[in-house]
């Protein structure tokens, strides 16, 4: 191939209209697709703080507790995201709904309308709109350093749930805030582990149509270059003497006849 990538790039820069058109087309298509067709995802998060139950009395005990918290952190994060915890969480929600329904029925029977309404509110709070499994729950944990600096907790962990229903992820976070104590008891009796933030609900996190449009716009910008390069790469036609010589090295190139354009150009020169 006698045209290098650099040559092609220089040449294609001249065809900027095509590149811009492709970029706009790809970017626009990505924006429309993400806005209209892609299922939206919402996220809710809750931050837990980890702190020693008893206040440190000796000098250096506080920093020691931080060190211990750091040491147990990976295990704790694993527990928070593993499937078993998610399944426990779903079971917790189901049990809670069942319990609240039973209580509401009892309250109805006793004629306590106010209590029945409270129990029904609990049912509503813990009812998930869709059926999830431990694997399908997209939970994630991260260390919330901002909260560590703002609070007096030794360590802060943010748990985030992401589903296509803003209510469901809020319910999950809510259940997690209650359920986490049982998780911690099995983990370490020395620490207090409890939620201290409000649950952020209903934040749309995906799809980010603008980012996707920018990404695909950039890809679109490169498409003409890639297509042109591939087309030139697979082009096995002979253009130059060197190419011909490489094909038939045993035979002489007797002559090269120039193109009509060159003939005309030279004729014009001759006339001039």
């Amino acid at each position, binding site marked *: 191939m*006698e*045209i290098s990538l650099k*040559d*092609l790039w220089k*040449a*294609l820069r*001249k*065809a900027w209209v095509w590149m811009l058109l492709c970029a706009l087309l790809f970017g626009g298509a990505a924006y429309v697709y993400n806005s209209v067709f892609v299922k939206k995802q919402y996220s809710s998060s809750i931050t837990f703080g980890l702190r020693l139950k008893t206040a440190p009395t000796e000098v250096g005990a506080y920093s020691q507790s931080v060190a211990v918290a750091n040491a147990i952190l990976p295990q704790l994060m694993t527990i928070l995201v593993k499937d078993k915890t998610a399944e426990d969480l779903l079971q917790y929600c189901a049990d809670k709904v069942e319990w609240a329904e039973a209580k509401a029925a009892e309250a109805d029977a006793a004629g306590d309308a106010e209590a029945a309404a409270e129990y029904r509110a609990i049912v509503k709070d813990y009812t998930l709109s869709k059926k999830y499994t431990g694997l399908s729950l997209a939970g994630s944990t991260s260390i919330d350093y901002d909260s560590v600096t703002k609070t007096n907790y030794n360590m802060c962990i943010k748990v985030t749930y992401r589903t296509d229903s803003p209510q469901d992820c809020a319910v999950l976070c809510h259940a997690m805030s209650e359920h986490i104590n049982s998780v911690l008891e099995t983990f370490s009796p020395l620490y207090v582990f409890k939620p201290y933030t409000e649950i952020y609900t209903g934040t749309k996190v995906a799809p980010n149509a603008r980012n996707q449009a920018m990404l695909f716009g950039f890809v679109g910008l490169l498409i003409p270059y890639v*297509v*042109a390069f*591939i*087309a*030139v790469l*697979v*082009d*096995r*036609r*002979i*253009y*130059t*003497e*060197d*190419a*011909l010589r490489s*094909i*038939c090295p045993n*035979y*002489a*190139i*007797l*002559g*090269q*006849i*120039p*193109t*009509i*354009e*060159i*003939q*005309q*150009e*030279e*004729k*014009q*020169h*001759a006339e*001039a």
Partner: protein
Amino acid sequence: MQKHNGNGGKQFQMPGFCRKIASYVRTRILHIPQRIECEDYDKKLLNEDSAFGVMEAYRMLRTNLLYTGALADHAIIGLTSAMPNEGKTLTCMNLAISFAMAGKKTLIIDGDMRNPSQIKGFGTPIHLGLSEYLSGIRKDPVIQKTGRDNLFLMVAGKRPPNTAELLASPRMKELLESLREEYDVIFLDLPPIGLVSDTMVVAEMVDGMMLVVQAGESDARNVQAAIASLEQMKAHILGVVLNNVSQKAGGYGRYGRYGKYGKYGSYGAYDAPAEANEK
């Protein structure tokens, strides 16, 4: 993409869209000129007013051909290409004109009876030619003047159904041997070797074969296959002519900058033919 041709070989061709994109990139973006589809041979044939570059290219071709040693005596040279429309007819005509201009008694035989084109170039009045002679309709070969000094033409004649058989007949061999005595150079314009077997049967009757390759059009694999076919027939391959070479593709080699030296073009005006006339 590959197709099988009638010759038993394979004909390679890029997918249409790739071909179009590659052509677009080369012509519109890289500004490499492409072949002009033009049947108007009058404008392409060499004459005293032809551009310097073209005249010089054919002169160079003539000189190189003389140096191959095939033209020691009255030589018969066959011209073919891998595929149709690669410019072999025009190259044949202009090369013959170049030899005629140099004072050599030159004959062109249009051996492409399936697609005769020489008659279009010179506008000769008689349409009888090779096929009539080979099939026995005419006892003597019909050779016509072209209106140019030292240049004669034998057209292909009416298209026969059995071209390959006629070309392979002993009458063809006799014709070439008889004409050899009369002319200094005989050019045989043959069909594309990648498509039909006509060229292969004639290849052993001529002194040498030239392969015309169209820059920006001929597929490398087809050219290789054409050379392999000629080698298989044990033809004497004189060399390859690269036709329609683009200046901007760099194919014009060291002379690629001719276009910039405008005054070079004026050399053509008082070059060999003009000098010869003065003498």
